[in-house]
C-alpha cells in the first residue's frame, strides 16, 4: 500500500557515471526512479485506493498484517545465544593457502560451526594459486587446527561435517578468465547448497592484491546484490593501504565496486572482548563520564607490547614496521575508543562517526612535532623470556641494513574541548619484555596535599584497563595505613575477568566473522576512519623518510624500548607505566 502511495527510491552504486561523488562514510546518494517526475518537486500523485484517514491507514495495515502469515523471524530463537542466525551463504576465501587463513580464519570458522552459530547452508570456497586438491587443503587445515585451535581436542564429528563444506579452486588473482569461471562456480554452489546467492568475500591475501581482486569481482558482477535477497559483502584485512594516498586510492577502487555498507575492514583488536567492554565501561557506567575529561585526567598511556619478533614475516614487516603495523590501526583505534564522545546509538555508523571525530581532532603532525614527539626504534639482540634472541637485522628475510622500525612511541594531543592539553602517549614494539596491552588513564593529583607529613606520598589515581593477557580493570587510590599516625599508601582495587580455565571467550575473528555474516559493521573500520588514521601516521613516515638513516638498532631485545622513548615522557615530568 505504501509502495504505491510513495514511489520507492533506489540506490545508485557509487561510481555510476553521472552521479555526484560522495566521500567515503557519507550516506549513499539516493535518486528518484526513472518513472518519478525528476524535474518537479511535487510528490507523486496519490493513488485512488490510498488510505486517507488514520483509520483507513490502520485498517489497511491491519489487513496487510493479516495476510502475511509467514513469520519473519524464528520465534524459537528468543532467549537463545543468537536471536537471529546468519543467512545461508558462501564464504569465498581469497588467499586460502596463506598463513592468515590457517592461523585465524579457518579455526574461527570451525569454532563457529561446532558451536552451531553458522547456518546449515554454509559453504567455504577457498581460492589460491597453489595446485591443491580440496582433500589436500582440508588435510592442511586439519593440521593447522591442532596448532591454532583455542579448544582441543578437535571434535572430529564437527570437523568432518565442516570439512565437507570446504571446496578449493585454483585462481590466479590477475587472471580475468578465472573470475569468469568463479561466477559459474558460485552459481553452482548456490544451487547445490541453497546458499541463496549470499556471498562473503574474505580477502586474506597480500594487500597488493586487494584492488585487483575487487576490480575483478566488479567486472564479473559478483558485487551486485539482488532484490530477492543475495547480499554481497567483502572483508578486507589490514593493512588497508601503506600511506594516506594509497589508502584513498584503495578506498576509491573498492568504492567503485562495493558500497561502503558492503565493506568490512578488519582490525581484529576491535573484536577482542575487553576492547568491546571498554565501550560498556565508559558508557554503561555513570560515574566515569563526568571525570573523563581534561579537568580530571592528567594523561593517557596506551601500550601494545609484544615479546615475539617478526617470526617468519620478515619480508612483510620490512614493508610495514611498527608505525603501519600497530600505530595506524590498533593504537589509534584504542585511543579513539578511549577519547570518543558517547555515540547516539550503539550502531555501526554513530559509533564510527565519533571515532572519526577523535582522529580528525589529533594535532597535525608537522615535521617538527614528529621529531619532538615521536620515537622510533629497532631491536638488537638480547634476552626475552629467558632465551637469547637475535636482533631484527639478523632475522630471516630482513635486510641486514634495514631501517624499519620495530618500536614506536608517540605523544599525541587531541584538540577538542574534552581533551585539550591532555597528552596521549602511545607505544608499541616487538621484542619487549612481555606481551601486554593496556590502557592507563592517569588522573590529576589532588589540588591540595592535606597529608604532607605522611611517610609516603600517595600517587595520583590511576585507572588501568588491561586488554591482554590478564583482562581486567584496576583502580589505584590512596588509603590510610591502620595505626595512630596518618600514613597514606596507594592500594589497588582490581577487577579481573574470569580466569582462563573457566571462561571460553570467543576469538576476535569468530566475533568479527559472525558480525559480518549478520551484517553488523559496528566493529569494523569505515573508509573515512582509515583515512583519518593514515592522515596522522603518514606525516610521521614522510618525516622519517626525509631524515638521515636512523641509528639502529637502538634498543636491546627484552627492554622497554629506546632511551628516547623514556625521555619523551620524562620531558613532561612523567614516566611510562611499567607493565
Amino acid at each position: 500500500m505504501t509502495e504505491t502511495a510513495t514511489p520507492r527510491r533506489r540506490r545508485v552504486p557509487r561510481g555510476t557515471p553521472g552521479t555526484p561523488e560522495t566521500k567515503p562514510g557519507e550516506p549513499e546518494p539516493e535518486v528518484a526512479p526513472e518513472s518519478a517526475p525528476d524535474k518537479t518537486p511535487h510528490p507523486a500523485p496519490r493513488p485512488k485506493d490510498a488510505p486517507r484517514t488514520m483509520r483507513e491507514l490502520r485498517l489497511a495495515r491491519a489487513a496487510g498484517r493479516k495476510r502475511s502469515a509467514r513469520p519473519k523471524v524464528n520465534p524459537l530463537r528468543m532467549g537463545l545465544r543468537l536471536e537471529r542466525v546468519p543467512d545461508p551463504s558462501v564464504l569465498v576465501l581469497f588467499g586460502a593457502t596463506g598463513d592468515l587463513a590457517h592461523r585465524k580464519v579457518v579455526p574461527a570458522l570451525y569454532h563457529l560451526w561446532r558451536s552451531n552459530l553458522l547456518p546449515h547452508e554454509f559453504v567455504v570456497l577457498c581460492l589460491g594459486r597453489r595446485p591443491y586438491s580440496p582433500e589436500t587443503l582440508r588435510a592442511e587445515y586439519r593440521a593447522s587446527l591442532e596448532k591454532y585451535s583455542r579448544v582441543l581436542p578437535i571434535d572430529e564429528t564437527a570437523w568432518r561435517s565442516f570439512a565437507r563444506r570446504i571446496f578449493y579452486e585454483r585462481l590466479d588473482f590477475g587472471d580475468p578468465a578465472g573470475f569468469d569461471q568463479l561466477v559459474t562456480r558460485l552459481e553452482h554452489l548456490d544451487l547445490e547448497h541453497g546458499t541463496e546467492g549470499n556471498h562473503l568475500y574474505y580477502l586474506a591475501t597480500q594487500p597488493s592484491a586487494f584492488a585487483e581482486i575487487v576490480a575483478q569481482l566488479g567486472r564479473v558482477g559478483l558485487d551486485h546484490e539482488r532484490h530477492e535477497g543475495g547480499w554481497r559483502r567483502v572483508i578486507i584485512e589490514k593493512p588497508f593501504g601503506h600511506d594516506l594516498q594509497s589508502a584513498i586510492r584503495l578506498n576509491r577502487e573498492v568504492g567503485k565496486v562495493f558500497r561502503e555498507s558492503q565493506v568490512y575492514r578488519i582490525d581484529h583488536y576491535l573484536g577482542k572482548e575487553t576492547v568491546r567492554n571498554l565501550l560498556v565501561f565508559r558508557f554503561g557506567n555513570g560515574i566515569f563520564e563526568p571525570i573523563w575529561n581534561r579537568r580530571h585526567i592528567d594523561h593517557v598511556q596506551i601500550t601494545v607490547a609484544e615479546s615475539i619478533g617478526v617470526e617468519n614475516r620478515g619480508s612483510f614487516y620490512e614493508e610495514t614496521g611498527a608505525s603501519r603495523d600497530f600505530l595506524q590501526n590498533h593504537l589509534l583505534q584504542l585511543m579513539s575508543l578511549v577519547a570518543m564522545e558517547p555515540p547516539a546509538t550503539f550502531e555501526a555508523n554513530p559509533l564510527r562517526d565519533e571515532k572519526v571525530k577523535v582522529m580528525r581532532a589529533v594535532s597535525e603532525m608537522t615535521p617538527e612535532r614528529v621529531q619532538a614527539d615521536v620515537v622510533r626504534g629497532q631491536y638488537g639482540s638480547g634476552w626475552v623470556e629467558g632465551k637469547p634472541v637475535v636482533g631484527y637485522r639478523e632475522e630471516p628475510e630482513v635486510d641486514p641494513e634495514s631501517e624499519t622500525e620495530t618500536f614506536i612511541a608517540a605523544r599525541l594531543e587531541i584538540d577538542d574541548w574534552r581533551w585539550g592539553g591532555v597528552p596521549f602517549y602511545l607505544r608499541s614494539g616487538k621484542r619487549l619484555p612481555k606481551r601486554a596491552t593496556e590502557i592507563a588513564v592517569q588522573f590529576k593529583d589532588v589540588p591540595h596535599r592535606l597529608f604532607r607529613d605522611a611517610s609516603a606520598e600517595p600517587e595520583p589515581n590511576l585507572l588501568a584497563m588491561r586488554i591482554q593477557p590478564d583482562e581486567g580493570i584496576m583502580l589505584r587510590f590512596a588509603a590510610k595505613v591502620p595505626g595512630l599516625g596518618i600514613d597514606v599508601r596507594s592500594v589497588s582495587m582490581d577487577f579481573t575477568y574470569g580466569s582462563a580455565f573457566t571462561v571460553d571467550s570467543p576469538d576476535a575473528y569468530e566475533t568479527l566473522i559472525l558480525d559480518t555474516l549478520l551484517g553488523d559493521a559496528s566493529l569494523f573500520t569505515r573508509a573515512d576512519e582509515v583515512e583519518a588514521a593514515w592522515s596522522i601516521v603518514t606525516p610521521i613516515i614522510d618525516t622519517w623518510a626525509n631524515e638521515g638513516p636512523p641509528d639502529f638498532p637502538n634498543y636491546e631485545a627484552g627492554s622497554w624500548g629506546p632511551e628516547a622513548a623514556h625521555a619523551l615522557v620524562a620531558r613532561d615530568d612523567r614516566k611510562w607505566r611499567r607493565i
Partner: protein
Amino acid sequence: MTADLEQPRSVTFMPGEEGRPVLAWRSRASSIEGIQTELARIWAHPTMQRDIDLDHDGVIDRQIGARTSVMNLVVVARRPETGERCAATIHALTGRHPSRTLIVTPADPDGPSWFDANIQAHCMVASETAPATCAETIYLTCGGESGRHLEAIIAPLLIHDLPVTLWWPDEPPLPTHVSASALEVCDRLVIDGSSWHGTGLTQLRRMAAFQQRRPVAISDFALIRQSRWREAIASVFDRPDVLPFVSHVRAITVTYAEHDDSGIEAPNLVKPVYHVAWLASRLGMRVSRRLAPESAGFSAALRNGRVEVPVTIRPMQSELPAGTTLRVEIQAAIQRSVLRADITAEQEAVHARVWLDDERILERGFSALRRTDLDLLAEVIETGGRDPVAVETLAMAAAIIGEAPP
C-alpha cells in the same frame, strides 16, 4: 546466643595453581556478632596481605586479598553433604563470580535453639602478578527455633545492597515456614526441578504459582540444561523455506528415559514437560487438554489457532538417568506439505534431522556438552533479572500439568 567456640585460626595463604582457589582462612563462631567479628578479622590478618611490587614501578604495593562483592549467595541445604557439594561448586567459581556465600543447614527442628558457624575464606590468583581474589564462605548449622527463622540469621550476614541469590538444591522450598522465611530475603531463586522426587510435577506447579505471587526470578537448572536442545530445535526452522512451518506445528512428541516399566517409581517428568511448555509458549499455543496418563506415557493437547496439536510424552528403556530427554519430534504441515523434525542428543552433541515430504533436507550435529552444576550456576549468576522465556515456560508448564498433576 552462646560465646564463640574457639579462637580464629588463619591458614597461611600460599597462592596455589593459577586459577585454583585455596583455603586462606578458617575460624568458628556461634553468634551473629561473632561471625561479623570474624569476617572483619579475615581481611586484617597479616597472612591475607602481600607486600609486592605489583606494577614494577619500584614502589611496594600492599596487596590485600580483595574481598569481592558481586553478590550474596545463600544455599539452604537439608543435608550437610548437599551443602558440601554446593560449596565445592561455589569455590570453583571464586575467580569468576566471587560472592559472600552462606551455606545454611537447618537441623534438629524440635531441639533447643542453637547455631554453629564455620567461617572460611578462599583466595585465588588468576596469574602470577595478579592480586588474589578472595571470597568468604560461612557454613551455618541452625538447630531448633533458629532453623525456623532463617531470615533472621541470613539478613544480618548479607553484604549491603547486593543482590541475593538463594540456591535451594533439594526439594522445592514451598510451602514450609522455613522456606518462606528464606525466600523473604532473596531476589533470585535457583532450583533443580530434575532432582525432585516423584514426577516433580506437583512441585513444578507450586513454583509456577509462587512465580505469579512474587517478583523473584526463578532459575531452574532443569530448564537451563535444555538450552542445547532448544538451540537444535530452533535451528530446524532457521532455513527461510522451513521457517513458515514454525507457525503450523501439528504434533509434538517427547521421549524420555525410564529404567523399568514396573511403574513403581515414577520418573521425574520435569524436563520432558519443559520441552513441550517451551515450544507451546514460544509458538503462542493454548492448552486444550491437560496432561494425563495413557497406556504408554502421558498425553495432552494444545491448540495452535484452530488446530489441535496432540502432545505425547512417552518413556523408553534407557541406561540414562530416569526422566532424561532422549528425543523430541515435531511435526508441522502447510496444506499437503509435511515437515518432520527429529532431535536427539548425546553426551557431547545434539543432532537434528529434518524431512520435508519424506525427503531428508537437513541432518546436522553440533557440539553441545552436557553442562555441570558449575556451568549452570555460572550462567544463572550472569543472567540479570527475570528471563521472560523462563517465566513463560514455567507458566505454560503449570497450565499443561493442570490442577491435579498426573
